[in-house]
């Protein structure tokens, strides 16, 4: 009899907790009772948001396993199309041909800019669009002509699968040439650490990735930030997409819905992107 008395308060507390738990988690409600694995790959600009969303979901429900890989937009579209992953992210809109071939469904959940960046030590923090085109074409090869130190400009670009590259090339360089002597790195994160390491480098990253380790370069007087992307003053912008093959179902659908929920939007904002309304 005494033992039951002891158990009673524990039971009451746990029932109360169970009743209150959904109220704490808010948008995470829908993941109650779900379990299984969700595989995500593709765009590297998406990764911070994906990681935070996955962390919150897995904290609320440890039965769910979410794995996140990079690879670039091309990889994301290809892998989701081939059925290797559940969600393939891309930092560019999938082409009509890709949508047709794989029956892709596109979900744009954020707006992002692509901004040129230099090392914070570099005094050159503003360029005109023509100057930038000349730099990436290899016509201007010394920082001195732009008001910097007398050192060679080290140009960094991204690999063929990158959506960031596709957008920057189209809207930033007006499809102008990128010199073959440019260094090639494989993700937004790698670009950031390369520029943070190299005082004479110039590259471009997703605006959401710009932090104290790299300095954004104002283009025709407009500094790429969330605000300038949002009000349209900064023109090199793009959508961030999560793609699925066919209509998403189950866990995949819930994950995408979570990105559009108030909690999801909070994550997107905190990682430096603009959630779509």
């Amino acid at each position: 009899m005494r033992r039951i008395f002891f158990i009673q308060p524990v039971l009451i507390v746990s029932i109360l907790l169970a009743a209150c738990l959904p109220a704490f988690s808010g948008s995470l409600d829908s993941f109650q009772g779900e379990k299984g694995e969700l595989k995500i790959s593709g765009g590297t600009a998406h990764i911070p948001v994906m990681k935070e969303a996955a962390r919150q979901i897995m904290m609320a429900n440890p039965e769910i396993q979410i794995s996140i890989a990079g690879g670039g937009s091309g990889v994301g579209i290809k892998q989701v199309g081939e059925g290797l992953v559940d969600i393939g992210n891309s930092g560019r809109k999938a082409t009509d041909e890709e949508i047709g071939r794989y029956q892709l469904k596109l979900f744009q959940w954020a707006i992002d800019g692509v901004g040129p960046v230099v090392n914070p030590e570099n005094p050159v923090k503003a360029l005109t669009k023509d100057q930038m085109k000349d730099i990436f074409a290899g016509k201007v090869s010394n920082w001195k002509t732009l008001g910097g130190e007398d050192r060679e400009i080290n140009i960094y670009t991204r690999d063929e699968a990158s959506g960031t590259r596709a957008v920057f090339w189209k809207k930033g360089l007006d499809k102008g040439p990128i010199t073959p002597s440019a260094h090639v790195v494989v993700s937004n994160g790698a670009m950031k650490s390369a520029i943070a390491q190299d005082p004479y480098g110039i590259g471009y990253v997703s605006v959401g990735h710009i932090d104290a380790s790299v300095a954004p370069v104002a283009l025709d007087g407009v500094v790429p930030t969330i605000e300038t992307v949002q009000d349209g003053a900064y023109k090199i912008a793009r959508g961030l997409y999560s793609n699925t093959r066919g209509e998403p179902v189950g866990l995949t659908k819930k994950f995408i819905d979570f990105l559009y929920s108030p909690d999801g939007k909070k994550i997107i904002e905190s990682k430096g992107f603009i959630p779509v309304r």
Partner: protein
Amino acid sequence: MKKYGELVAERSFLLSALASSSITVAILAFMVFMGLPLMKQAGFYQLLVKPWAPYQGTFGIYPMIVGTGCISLLSLVVAFPLSLGCSFLIATIAPKPVSKGLRRLIELMTGIPTVIYGFVGIFLLVPYIRELFRSGSGLCVLTAALVLGIMITPTMTLFFCDSFDRIPRSYLTAAEALGASRTQKLLYVILPCAKMGMLNGVILALGRAVGDTLVALMLAGNSVRVPGSVLEPARTLTAHIALVIAADYESPEFRSIFACGIVLYLFTMMVTFLVRYLSFAEGRRD
């Protein structure tokens, strides 16, 4: 009963031997098949000598072949003296406990994953090279070759040590009896006897340097241009495959990496045959 069992074993071994050897051939056939559309369109020779400019419609892998050649040969130049010194020390000069310890350490070094060499190189060597020469970004042929050289040194050293150990004891004692100094013993007995074994080691280390992907991908800068000096960035064939594999399956870019695969395959095959031939020649001479 025993005979029957033996027959089964024989057949199954034959089967596994056939399977593994046919897979090797099948891989080559697969690469040729996949690369064929582009090769027909452009010609294999054209692929080998043209530059890489996907937007202008040329998918040559010439810069990557040159990049691979420069980086791997330069890494041999770095690794050879290092390995030679290490193996001399281990095999002849150092006292027994020291040489044993060193050998264990070098065996351990062969097991370090290449990504760790690349990682250390990015943080320690790249800024140093950039400021030392005050040119470029530090991500260049020289940096990659230095790290790759250090990476292949343990393999080479172990091969050298093994070939030193294979020298008959009596040769060494004979040299000592004739009053040869340590240096003389090294130069006139050990080196000539171990020549073939050392060559094997060098060739296999070269194979490892050519085949490595991550060090070059992380440190060589990956630009698609024939490097003008060792301080300029370059891209290797393996890094090129790693970078392009993400492109669309149907695109000519993607097709071109099969040409890279064929070049690498043929190179490895050549290396293997060379090693076989050399060991065969050595075996016949003895």
